[in-house]
């Protein structure tokens, strides 16, 4: 075994030193909550496949304070995901040209946020209609 012990600078908390990196870690971290919610839905789908008793038990579990708190956290994280997803569009998407002019970043981001609000309301309306 080598006796050399080269100095390796620790990476611990590197991102905490700069607000820009903190925001970066937070918006990348929303993926953990997207995954957690998707796994929750997957469990629901498995329970649906097992029949009525299993499904009703899953619905009951969703009423527990534990579940409600978790979903409130999912909601905040996924709203933040939606907010940053469109906020980064000027960097992540190819430029959009209309009448030979590049569409400004403000318009691109604003359209994205508008689309998110419209899609959310349309989904709520659709669910309400199907259920009624």
């Amino acid at each position, binding site marked *: 075994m080598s006796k050399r012990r080269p100095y390796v600078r620790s990476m611990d908390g590197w991102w905490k030193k700069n607000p820009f990196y903190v925001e970066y870690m937070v918006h*990348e971290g929303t*993926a953990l909550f997207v995954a957690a919610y998707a*796994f929750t839905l*997957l469990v629901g*789908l*498995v329970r*649906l496949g097992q029949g009525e008793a299993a499904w009703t038990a899953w619905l009951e579990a969703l009423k527990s304070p534990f579940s409600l708190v978790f*979903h409130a956290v999912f909601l905040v994280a996924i709203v933040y995901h939606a907010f940053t997803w469109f906020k980064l569009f000027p960097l992540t998407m190819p430029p959009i040209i209309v009448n030979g002019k590049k569409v400004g970043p403000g318009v691109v981001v604003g359209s994205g946020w508008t689309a998110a609000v419209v899609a*959310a309301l349309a989904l709520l309306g659709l669910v309400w209609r199907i259920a009624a």
Partner: protein
Amino acid sequence: MKTRKRSNAPIFWGLFGAGGMLAALFGPMLVFITGIAVPLSLLLPADTMSYPKMLAFAQNFIGKAFIFAIIALFLWHAAHRIFHSLHEIGIHAGIGSKLICYGLAFISTVISAYILLGLGF
């Protein structure tokens, strides 16, 4: 002439983008409906997610496609993002972490497809 191997990166990048877009458009409202509004009987009819209604939804072709897209694409999105962020917290992004991230998304995709097909049309 040497034939070059095509990169598979665009596939995973595409799944990441599609899942991220779906999560941005429908994620917040879905969480609100399934995790808050229905359990607390707010706003929506009390039997919105009752067994007959959910079964009918999962047996409808469009409903099936929606459930599948939400679960599978959310997980491919998250897997890709988490895998590429591992480096940031000092974890080497090797074959093991790749298998865990994308493997979980893959297994979940297969499970949801299996159940949705099993529920019939």
